[in-house]
């Protein structure tokens, strides 16, 4: 049985999925009728993650390891970690709480790089724990990691272009300048013209385009990706797009509040 609170959250999520360009301040005000500001952040960030995260796992063929929607351990090509002890029914150890980084520290770094937009972190800030874990993921996969930063910054620009939100990856921002991304390259990304990029950059950009566009990545695109990147690198690229995919669309709608 759905109550008014459930319906408000589902209404927001449905609009994000089906008609995200039309998200506007009124949608957040409707949530505020039922949720405190930290709760609102939780509903919004969960919806934003679910918008893009599962598509990443699907792009990796995660469903191929299930039978009728279930994981059947005996049918898998490898033994999974801790499978034996799980069968004994022994209770699992608690999942430790991650360290929390202060909002001030996160904002300071974001403002220096202009990546992610500081305004986005301020939106999340009523929920300090989520701000910290979201930002830790963003920094791990977009700003740090094993894949060269330029490729992930190119993906960020592509994403900003596809969701029509320049402010997600502003021209001239230190993160883009450091990555050597020029105005002509941004224009090429806007026009789906990848020919001026290296083969490795092209493969990463096509992968990002699949995740950001339909959420589906063709076999040919993934096959090309696998010829240019290792599996550890593909994991990083997938998360780098997914952490921004829904978030950038929400961010775009938040800017309307400022207009």
């Amino acid at each position, binding site marked *: 049985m759905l109550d008014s*609170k459930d319906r408000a*959250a*589902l209404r927001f*999520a*449905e609009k994000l*999925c*089906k008609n995200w360009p039309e998200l506007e301040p009124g949608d957040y005000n409707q949530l505020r009728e039922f949720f*405190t500001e930290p*709760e609102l952040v*939780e*509903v919004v*960030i*969960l*919806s934003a*993650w*679910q*918008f893009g995260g*599962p*598509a990443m*796992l*699907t*792009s*990796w*063929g*995660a*469903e*191929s*390891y*299930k039978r009728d929607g279930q*994981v059947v351990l005996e049918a898998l090509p*490898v*033994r*999974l*970690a801790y*499978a034996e002890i*799980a069968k004994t029914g*022994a209770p*699992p*150890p608690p*999942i*430790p709480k*991650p360290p929390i980084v202060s909002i001030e520290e996160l904002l300071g770094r974001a403002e220096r790089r202009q990546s992610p937009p500081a305004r986005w972190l301020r939106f999340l800030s009523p*929920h300090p*724990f*989520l701000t910290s*874990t979201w930002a*830790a*993921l963003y*920094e*791990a*996969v977009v700003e740090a990691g094993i894949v060269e930063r330029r490729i992930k910054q190119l993906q960020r620009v592509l994403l900003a272009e596809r969701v029509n939100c320049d402010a997600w990856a502003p021209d001239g921002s230190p993160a883009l300048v450091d990555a050597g991304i020029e105005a002509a390259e941004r224009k090429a990304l806007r026009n789906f013209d990848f020919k001026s990029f290296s083969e490795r950059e092209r493969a990463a950009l096509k992968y990002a385009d699949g995740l950001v566009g339909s*959420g589906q990545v063709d076999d040919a695109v993934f096959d090309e990706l696998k010829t240019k990147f*290792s*599996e*550890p*690198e*593909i*994991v*990083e690229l997938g*998360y780098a797009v997914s952490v921004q995919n829904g978030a950038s669309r929400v961010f775009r709608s938040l800017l309307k509040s400022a207009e």
Partner: protein
Amino acid sequence: MEQIRARMSLVPGEIVESWNDPEVEAHFRTSYIEGTPPPTSLSLDAHNRDTQRAGRRFMWFLFHEGLVDHRLKEMLRVQIARWRDCDY
């Protein structure tokens, strides 16, 4: 039903267990009980330990802790998968 192609390999258990990482162990062992995320997903993102750590910390506490009722979060998860036409 069309057979879905495996695009990425699963990191074998002996490799993950050799890390002796209590946080990774807790995530895996909980996944067998909770079912979400499935242990196969953890075995996919285990290819990149730093990414897995950051990703799983974010997702676990987003879905399983926090301020909003877990029942509502589960509804959102299922409905968004439908609206996004995503099997996962």
